[in-house]
């Protein structure tokens, strides 16, 4: 293993030296086609840093993870993208299961958090965790004060009839975020209890949005009082100054693992691996937090997360089983049950 790291470091150094020796001759170092599932600014910062570091020219497109998965599947016969960086872990696992992506080994697993490596194992070594973010909810302080409602602290609070028509969450059929929420409460309460809870919550939900991040936006505009979302989707609005607070529920909560996969049949495999290795280094992992474009927790233990990011050490986490709840049988069963027992019930 140390030999490989040494070789890699030598390689990186050599490429660095070459790119210094031949400024403006980026072509010679190769090209990489990147499809990015994170927010645009973060993608751009990463691309610029990588280009400077390696001299490899990156052509980047940003899309949502669902769109990326659909696209990779459609163009599987003749892939146009080399590497898929970012975006929630479930579609990455699904792509790995269907053989749309290929195996790769991290250069130094010892630097990575266990959840990142677990994603790697769950995904047949075809995908690896790069960031993590906790599930949670937020509330609009102004609206709650106007309605004289108490601040919710736990998942259970949200089902209280006091919050009738005040809670917003996405539809798990369309949004991975909401499916993560569904799987989280199932793992906390057990399946039957969880559906009891969801039925009660149903009476409080004003809208099942199509897009996963929509509740966070509705909260920031004051269109809903409570919104269930990933915490890192809520935090940017708090930083922007919206009258919002982010809550890590008292019963504990689940999380998502933002991942990275190399596309099977990539036209530039060498450059794709270079990105793969670089993206897991502490240096690359600090770019998001440093430029305030990411409020997630980096997979590299040595990389520092942003101060405003949800502090993982203070959140009570459940032992989220991605392999089980990401599998298509369990997913189909839970979604069908949710459709018949929750969504299609009168309010």
């Amino acid at each position: 293993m140390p030999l490989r790291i040494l070789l890699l470091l030598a390689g990186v150094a050599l490429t660095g030296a070459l790119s210094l020796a031949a400024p403006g001759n980026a072509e010679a170092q190769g090209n990489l086609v990147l499809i990015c599932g994170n927010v645009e600014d973060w993608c751009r910062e990463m691309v610029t840093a990588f280009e400077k570091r390696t001299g490899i020219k990156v052509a980047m497109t940003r899309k949502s993870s669902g769109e990326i998965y659909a696209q990779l599947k459609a163009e599987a016969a003749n892939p146009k993208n080399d590497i898929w960086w970012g975006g929630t872990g479930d579609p990455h696992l699904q792509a790995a299961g269907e053989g749309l992506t290929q195996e790769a080994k991290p250069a130094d697993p010892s630097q990575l958090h266990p959840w990142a490596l677990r994603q790697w194992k769950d995904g047949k070594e075809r995908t690896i965790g790069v960031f993590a973010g906790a599930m949670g909810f937020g509330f609009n302080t102004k609206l709650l004060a106007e309605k004289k409602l108490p601040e919710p602290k736990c998942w259970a609070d949200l089902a209280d009839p006091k919050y009738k028509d005040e809670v917003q969450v996405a539809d798990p059929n369309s949004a991975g975020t909401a499916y993560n929420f569904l799987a989280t409460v199932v793992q906390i309460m057990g399946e039957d209890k969880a559906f009891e809870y969801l039925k009660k919550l149903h009476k409080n939900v004003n809208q099942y949005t199509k897009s996963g991040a929509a509740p966070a936006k509705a909260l920031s505009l004051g269109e809903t009082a409570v919104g269930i979302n990933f915490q890192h989707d809520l935090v940017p609005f708090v930083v922007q100054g919206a009258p919002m607070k982010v809550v890590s529920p008292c019963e504990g909560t689940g999380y998502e693992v933002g991942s990275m996969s190399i596309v099977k049949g990539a036209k530039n495999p060498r450059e794709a691996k270079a990105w793969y290795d670089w993206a897991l280094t502490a240096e690359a992992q600090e770019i998001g937090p440093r430029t305030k474009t990411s409020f997630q927790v980096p997979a590299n233990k040595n990389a520092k997360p942003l101060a405003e990011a949800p502090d993982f050490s203070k959140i009570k986490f459940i032992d989220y089983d991605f392999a089980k709840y990401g599998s298509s049988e369990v997913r189909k069963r839970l979604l069908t049950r949710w459709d018949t027992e929750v969504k299609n019930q009168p309010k």
Partner: protein
Amino acid sequence: MTRALRLWIAVGWVGVLILPWYAIDSSFWYFDWYLKYDGDNAPTAHQIFAQGRWYLAPPVLALIAAMPALFMHRDSRRLSRLLVAAGIAGMALMLAEGAAIDHRGWSWAWLQALMGGEGPKQPGMGYGALVLAAAFLMLMCQGLAALGWCRGDAFIVSAVALVVALVGVFVFFPVFEVLLSALQDDKGNVALVVFFEKFLDHSVWGLDCLNSSLRCGVAWNTVFLAVVVGAGSTLFGLAFALIATRTDFPFKGLLRVMSVLPIITPPFVIGLAMILLFGRSGVVTGFLNEWLDIPRSRWIYGLQGVAIAQLLAFTPIAFLVLIGVVQGVSPSLEEASLTLRAKGWKTFNTVTLPLIRPGLANAFLLGFVESMADFGNPLVLAGNYEVLATKIFFAVVGASHDQGRAAVLAIILLGFTLVAFYAQQMWLGKKSYTTVTGKGDAGLAVPLPSGLRWLCYAAVIPFALLTAAMYVTILLSSFWKTVGRDYSLTFEHYLTGFKVEWGERGLYFGGSAWNSFWTTIEISAISAPLTAAIGLLTAYLLARQKFAGQRAFEFCTMLSFAIPGTVIGVSYILAFNVPPIELTGTGVILVICFVFRNMPVGVRSGIATLSQIDKSLDEASLTLGAKSFTTVRRVVLPLLRPAIVSSLVYSFVRAMTAVSAVIFLVSAQYNMSTAYIVGRVEAGEYGLAIAYSNVLILVMLSAILLIQFLVGERRLGRRQPQQAMVVVQAGG
């Protein structure tokens, strides 16, 4: 032997001997091939001999087989038959060759078994193949015309064949590919049971809303919304058109601008502006709450909100279709009616209204189809009211990733379009709507009866005020620091997107939006004239010519418009990602997608306008010895000016504002503004998204003015009101 024949044979040889057979570089503007004239860059003749690509030879043999035609008598039937045979054989051989070998070798397992091994590999077809295929098609048409098809008119045969070929390749083929997945299960096996299960699902057809508080199926929701929006936008569009043409309303220019604004507004923006105005924390809601004690509510989320947003967005389309038709109504018919002592109302009801039926029917059809395919407004405003377009989008990209379901739902959507299409045909019937004839028509447009005039005002003024309020919000919110919260003014959003600096090498476009901005303008500017040309050509063929399978052909041209963008996007990847036609990642695929997606608007408004123009005008031209091409150019086109303007404007605008199809087709090199805007909306940066939209609105406004200036007004020899005054005075 005619000149056209010689020309097309020469074109064929250019494709074989000079142009590169394969498309190597992904850019359409790639002209460096003549510098590196070898390997995959070489023309097919070079490939066959120097590279040993024997499988490229058969199409060339077909071209050689056509050569004897050069020495035959121009009227001999042998010549015609030879041309038809060579043309069909050439195209068939090209098709077979392209389908048999792709980038990985033999495409079919039985071929692999037969030939042994992986087989040769080849990239997608390029300029050479394109030109040769065109030559074969045209040779076939020359032959068919000589055999007496379409009364021996080679222009008409060629035009029909060209449109059929293009629609076949770029509409039928990809749509067929994706609809096939409706019949397959998760593993790609044919499974009819799964299809019917998905098709008859309770969530699609359920009628629970009639007798309980539960929601109805998504299909009923969609149809109801589409009927409301189709009828509403037609009525509002008619009111606008009547006011613009038949009254002396002082602010006509302003009305026209305001009616056109919503059509040039990028998606999400109208929905967002509606939330900022009427949402729970909206400006108007807050005002009503403080002054009238009306409690804040979420009433806009649902059917009402989407219907209002769609009416705002699609009424302009109805207006664009109807204004040409209302202008075209012959005043002398109305004058005759008035002379016979009919009252204003009666004249309007029995003369004007029946004459504008084609316009009404087409406007309704467009509104209906647009509403069903619209995705941006329901996404933002639909609340818990589900419609097919969003359901289809999330079936593809959502957590369930069920492309088969998306295809099934798309088939349902298509079914509704088919029904609407035939209902429209039935309603129009076989009556004549001709009002623009060769006879002198010096009548004066009759003013509206006063009751109707006030009705129109009552409809248009609130509509215009609402539009105005929306646009003031949209304009202001791009200058607010944080939309909806911090109302201090700033230029920050414009600077982030569109910063321009003086660098060492002159202007430096530093803003993050410039890249997608230029691409968008380039792609839209290329696709708009192409769309208008092919759309109007098709309209001319449908309205003026008779050929077998006309109705089916007409419906096929509507296909890509009626299918939701998401499905089109996926279908284009499925169809055009592998050789023989490999276009993904290029700008060409965006242009093609826009051309065939927006072409129906050219077709619809072309047909509506053409049905008013007397055929005897064409016939007079033909009798005087003009060819049909000359007739089209000198007689039909000038009379079609309103249709040209509306299809040019519409296709340009749609190319700039389309979202759902584009999301799958953009690449790093060719990124479109809407993809950028959607990304910003997703990240919650509304200010930047709206600022970008405002820049686009400005660009589109200037483009519309430019198009109107370039195409010009249609001049129907009719008196101007001022002249009329003089005549009346002289008479009195």
